[in-house]
């Protein structure tokens, strides 16, 4: 029985923070985490990693590539599951998922490049073709292999209520990896986002960094897809940095504010979803709620900027 059973929105928070404190001080073991707590932790970790990656993506105007990645990840998962599962047993574990991220990241980026540069198609059209065909292929494969059309939906929509501790571990590692990648190469990212030609003349390779960024993105997508599904992951990726971008034009602040927005939204969303369940007996998708909150934040920030802040002179 979850300790959160019967809690409403307000009374969610005292319990959550007291249990979090217990957890950190050691009197509550990791195994006894309630589903709600796992949800909060996973969602905020996912939000943190996607906020980091998303800010860079937005600055580099590569979000549509991220969108295509979020679709092709399905194919990556299917292929690697087929490759690595032995004796017809579909086992999905950490290594396989990471391999999937790698495969789909590389495949998407390279194919898009090929269509755009090699076959001289418009860039957005080549993005569109690559991701939709790969996604379609993924769905067909899934359907053929499992004889079940339901999995596709699950991947697309995500299911935050079926999370367990393994997902937490994974989200943690990916968040750690992302933060390390951003902190270690902070100067390089800054350079490449704002002045790619200077970066090039200093000897960095923008294409290599682009590929690196895509790999980070696909790792993040993998860690997110079980919790929120590949499409809502996109909202996490784009929403918080866009909202933060309204208020600040400093890269460091942008990163921190968007991480804050993301994790705040996920905390409130879990609480709200519990609230709806308790008070109105309505079970809502937590991921959907989070996205709605992110959207509301964006509108709110827009209002703040419009009414309270002086417009920045061009």
């Amino acid at each position, binding site marked *: 029985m979850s300790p959160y059973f019967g809690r409403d929105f307000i009374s969610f928070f005292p319990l959550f923070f007291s249990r979090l404190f217990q957890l950190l001080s050691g009197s509550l073991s990791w195994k006894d985490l309630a589903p709600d707590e796992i949800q909060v932790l996973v969602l905020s970790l996912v939000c943190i990693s996607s906020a980091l990656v998303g800010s860079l993506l937005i600055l580099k105007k590569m*979000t549509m590539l991220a969108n295509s990645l979020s679709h092709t990840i399905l194919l990556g998962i299917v292929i690697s599951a087929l490759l690595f599962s032995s004796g017809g047993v579909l086992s999905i574990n950490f290594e396989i998922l990471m391999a999937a991220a790698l495969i789909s990241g590389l495949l998407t980026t390279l194919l898009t490049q090929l269509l755009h540069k090699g076959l001289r198609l418009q860039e957005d*059209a080549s993005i569109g073709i690559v991701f939709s065909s790969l996604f379609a292929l993924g769905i067909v494969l899934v359907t053929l292999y499992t004889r079940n059309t339901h999995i596709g939906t699950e991947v697309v929509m995500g299911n935050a209520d079926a999370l367990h501790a393994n997902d937490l571990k994974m989200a943690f590692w990916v968040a750690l990896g992302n933060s390390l990648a951003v902190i270690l190469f902070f100067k390089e990212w800054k350079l490449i986002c704002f002045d790619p030609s200077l970066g090039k003349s200093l000897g960095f390779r923008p294409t290599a960094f682009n590929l690196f960024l895509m790999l980070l993105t696909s790792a993040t997508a993998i860690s997110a897809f079980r919790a929120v599904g590949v499409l809502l992951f996109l909202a996490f990726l784009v929403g918080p940095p866009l909202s933060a971008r309204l208020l600040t034009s400093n890269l460091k602040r942008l990163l921190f504010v968007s991480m804050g927005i993301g994790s705040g939204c996920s905390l409130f969303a879990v609480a709200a979803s519990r609230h709806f369940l308790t008070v109105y007996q309505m079970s809502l998708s937590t991921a959907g709620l989070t996205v709605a909150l992110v959207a509301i934040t964006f509108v709110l920030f827009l209002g703040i900027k419009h009414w309270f802040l002086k417009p920045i002179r061009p």
Partner: protein
Amino acid sequence: MLMCFSAGIVGGLIFLQRRSLVGEALAHASYPGVVLSVFVASLLFPFSEAIVSVFVLVGAFATAFIGLFVIDRLEKKIQISSDAALCFVLSTFFGIGVLIASRIQTTHALWYRQIQSFLFGQAATMVDAHIYLYGGLALFVSLLFVVLYRRLELLHFDREFARTVGMNVKRIHGILHALFVLALVIGMRSVGVILLSAMLIAPAAAARQWTQRFDHFLILCGVIGMGSGFLGNVFSVKIGGEGLVLPTGPMIVLTATSVCILSLLLAPKRGVFFRLIRLWRFQLRCKQENLLKALYKGRRVALNPFFHFSMQAKGWIKGGELTTEGIREAENLIRLHRLWEVYLVHMGQPSDRVHRSAEEMEHILTPEIEAELNALLGSPKEDPHAQPIPRGEST
């Protein structure tokens, strides 16, 4: 098939405007509309399939239009770059759709299933009423295109001119947007929300490879869309085998993209395959001509069998000796080379820098340019290095 036809035509226009990914965003944005309207309609008229599907169309149309509006606003008012705006609208609208859907999921499982069929498309489950409804709408879209064709063409290629002629550019744009959203909504039932964008892009990208003309382009878009719709349906039944029907949407999309990739590779003018062949043939000719020059100048050249054969086939050499044809060709090349050198010097280049450029130009210059050069330079007899210029056939 009609749906795919209209999607193809509209996609063609969008492709030309270089806004292919808008379709993707709007297709997702229509999802909450679908969900909401299934919800409302089923509450009001629980037993009538036809009314529910009309409601779905209206709802999807409405939210997709809102999405389009929001994207426009985000781009213009807040100066968010267009890709980020698209992504944002796409994912938040879809998220809200998911939120509402999850509300329905537990209480009204049947409706939920109905909604899910819009995600990947299920043409197989359509009944007669659907067919008339969607078919009629698709026809309507196509007909409207025929009626508006002239204006679209004008608007598309010369907006300023359209304005001066007195056309109401804004209104046409509005109609176009409405058509766009309508085509999306129609296509949704067959291909599904997620893959709809492929149906907009792939036929257009394929058709663009084959033609330069606007009318041909649009018709071709439609035909390709229709064809892949048909084939996709066939495949989805054939491959699935007994008991399992593959989702139609992905199959249609896969068919359309294969057509597209084939056209990218094989189209006669713009395809990669023929471009490579043209490149290769040009390189071959350059090599042959260089060998010919070397032979003409009396150098000993060890021809490998391939070049020996190919140059013999052109009639340039016979048994290791140049034929008269070969000599004439070689003289012509040298003439072009030296003429070009004279021309460059005439244009003010130092005479020791002109050889390399002429070495390339001698393969490219056409008889017309040769005649013009000759006239411009007054039929020179010597090049800048005091070498004689052979007399051309024309002079």
